[in-house]
């Protein structure tokens, strides 16, 4: 898995632009996160969609998480159908990378639906921030 992620990150770094916002400004590739919770709200919007989940922490307290993903136009070609694929109250599992500020906010890469079906919701880690070293170095 690490090899795959490294390949994707390396490729993303080489791409002129295939998504427009910097992953690394907001999210930390070193803090992958997977949570399961109940869907409370969906923003089916551009340039990013958002899922809001109520997630119980280890003490049983409910934490409201927000996951950011692809724009709605992209989701419509990625296997998602507005108001049909997911509904408020569904239990979802989301994998992604957490925000640098450690708030309950993450980029949502993949969503597992209640029936076990998995769909990409957002781009791979590293998208949009560019390489660490300027071209020509």
């Amino acid at each position, binding site marked *: *898995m690490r*090899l*795959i992620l490294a*390949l*994707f990150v390396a*490729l*993303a*770094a*080489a*791409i*002129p*632009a*295939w*998504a*427009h*916002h*910097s992953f*690394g*400004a*907001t999210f930390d590739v070193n803090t992958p996160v997977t949570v399961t919770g109940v869907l409370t709200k969906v*923003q089916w*919007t*551009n*340039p*990013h969609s*958002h899922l809001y989940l109520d997630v119980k922490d280890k003490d049983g307290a409910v934490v409201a998480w927000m996951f*950011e993903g*692809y*724009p709605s*136009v*992209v989701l*419509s*070609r*990625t296997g998602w159908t507005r108001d049909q694929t997911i509904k408020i109250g569904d239990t979802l599992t989301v994998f992604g990378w957490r925000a*640098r*500020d450690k708030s309950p906010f993450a980029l949502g890469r993949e969503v597992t639906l209640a029936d076990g079906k998995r769909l*990409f919701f957002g*781009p*791979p880690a590293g998208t*949009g*921030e*560019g*390489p*660490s*070293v*300027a*071209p*020509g*170095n």
Partner: protein
Amino acid sequence: MPRLTGFVVVIIGAWMSVLSASAQSTAASAPRTADGKIDLNGVYQASPLRGAWDPSQPGPPLSEQPSLTPAARQRAQELLNRRSIDDPTAICLPSAGPRMSGVILFPIQFVQTPGQVVIIYEYMNAVRIIPTDGRPHPADAEPTYQGDSVGRWEGDTLVVDINNFKEGNWLAAGVVSSDKLHITERYARVDKDQINYEAVIEDPVLLTKPWTIRRTLMLREGVRVREYVCAENNLDPGRYQEYLKNPSLFMRSPEQAAPPR
């Protein structure tokens, strides 16, 4: 997992092969319009693969790295250290053709009529109107984000000359143009499924020599261009203002960022 590894390797290989494709390839099997020109009409995706819309593959790597002037390289490093938060697309602005044509998540539609080709990018809802009737660049053109395009047919290849760009165009991460930017694009539909795209980028302030980008645009039958209003729910500019109050939270550390040479 080995299957996924194989898939990634195949994709990389496919991109490598198409990146070496020439924009002047023969077009014997490509469709033609009534006036005998190559017919570019259709909806395409930047991709090395024929067939259906494919959102999962990695995008095209740069076919050639830009050779930056020392000042441009230093600026690029500074911008990369800021993880590209200054990229104008973060505030929903469009960019020049070579970048717009490489955004794999969004379709591109060509509408060709006698004397004109219109390129509609779903990304940023951007449109380029390219006259092909022999007229020159207008004398009163204002600098714009996508520049002013005029086209001509060289055999079966559509050649587009673009000038009059606003300065500050991000052609790649941290690679930012001056107002001297000039681009020559070539579109060659080599068969029903494939357009070979080539862009030669010139900017004496940014580059020490012309920079050539090549990729393929693949026909995606049944895909439609949708409305993409980036300003609808763009939360990033507000976030970035907050991040800049504590830049160490997000900026690349000195260990991560090599100093420009």
